[in-house]
């Protein structure tokens, strides 16, 4: 499980994003039991307190839940995955459009470019 962190954003936020991504991509399935805080911390190479903070936040947001002695689990509800995917798609697209804009591409230019690339891929496939 690869964790990649940048150094100017608080770690706990980055951890939260990383976990949301794993849930959204289906890497972590609903109802899955999480490893212990320490194990996760060692794996990610971060301070256990930081990991704990991230997990607690995710619990608050309803993405994880804790059963007293049994540990932490991914929330059971399937719609969580959908919601996360929606959230992530939005942020990816916004970021992409923002980058394109900085290169001087308007929205129409971007759409045209996407169409062109998609056609090229189709032709390669034939």
């Amino acid at each position, binding site marked *: 499980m690869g964790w990649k962190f940048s*150094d*100017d954003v608080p*770690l706990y936020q980055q951890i939260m994003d990383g976990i949301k991504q794993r849930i959204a991509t289906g890497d972590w399935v609903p109802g899955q039991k999480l490893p212990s805080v*320490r194990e996760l911390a060692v794996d990610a*190479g*971060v*301070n256990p*307190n*930081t990991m704990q903070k991230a997990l607690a936040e995710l619990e608050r947001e309803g993405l994880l839940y804790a059963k007293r002695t049994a540990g932490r689990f991914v929330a059971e509800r399937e719609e969580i995955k959908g919601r996360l995917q929606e959230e992530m798609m939005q942020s990816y697209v916004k970021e992409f459009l923002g980058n394109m804009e900085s290169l001087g591409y308007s929205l129409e230019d971007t759409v045209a470019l996407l169409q062109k690339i998609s056609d090229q891929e189709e032709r390669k496939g034939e």
Partner: protein
Amino acid sequence: MEELIRCKGVSKKYGRTLGLEDLSLSIASGKIVGILGPNGSGKTTFIKVLSGLLMPEAGEVLIDGKPIGTESKALVSYLPERPYFSDAMRISEVIDFFEEFYRDFQREAAERMLQTLGLDPERKISALSKGNREKVQLILVMSRKAKVYLLDEPMGGVDPAARDFILKTILTNYNEDASVLISTHLISDVENVLDDVIFIKQGRLALYKSVDEIRMEENKSVDALFREVFAC
């Protein structure tokens, strides 16, 4: 989480040069704290005072409520910058030594870690490479169930794989009743592992914040902030 380390008005002079000046701080248990500062800033003096190797001229230091002495030394596991085992000893003899003098030493943990690294306990310390020697020292220090771990430049001159091993060992040994103090100038390597950072500048406490606070408030890494604060 109780107050594990408390310093009040600690001062240490070396002749006319100031090592530490009126240092006051409090470190709770369950924290991994970075002690950061350039060479000669006083961070090594600070670590030496906590370990009992240096007596301050003024001020009070309490470790788990105890003043510096034999009781506090039993609670503190110190890893100095330099090799401190006799060259002529074998690794197994050093393990015996630690077991003899430290009640909180866990032999099996040490032996397990040595095995993971493929180090034969029957080898002499003198026969080990510099990197391996440092790893052995770290293993022995971290194999104690101490309340305070003082690591003075644990990653200087060690290869990246070894640095990973060191950080992993620190994280694996984490426990809420103990705290780890890491004095280093290789900040970007340890940043992710730290709860809080303490900047020591010219013997004084320049900053004591959590890593998260720094990133949120300053929008930069601790490493970047360090370069700013200590710009020459």
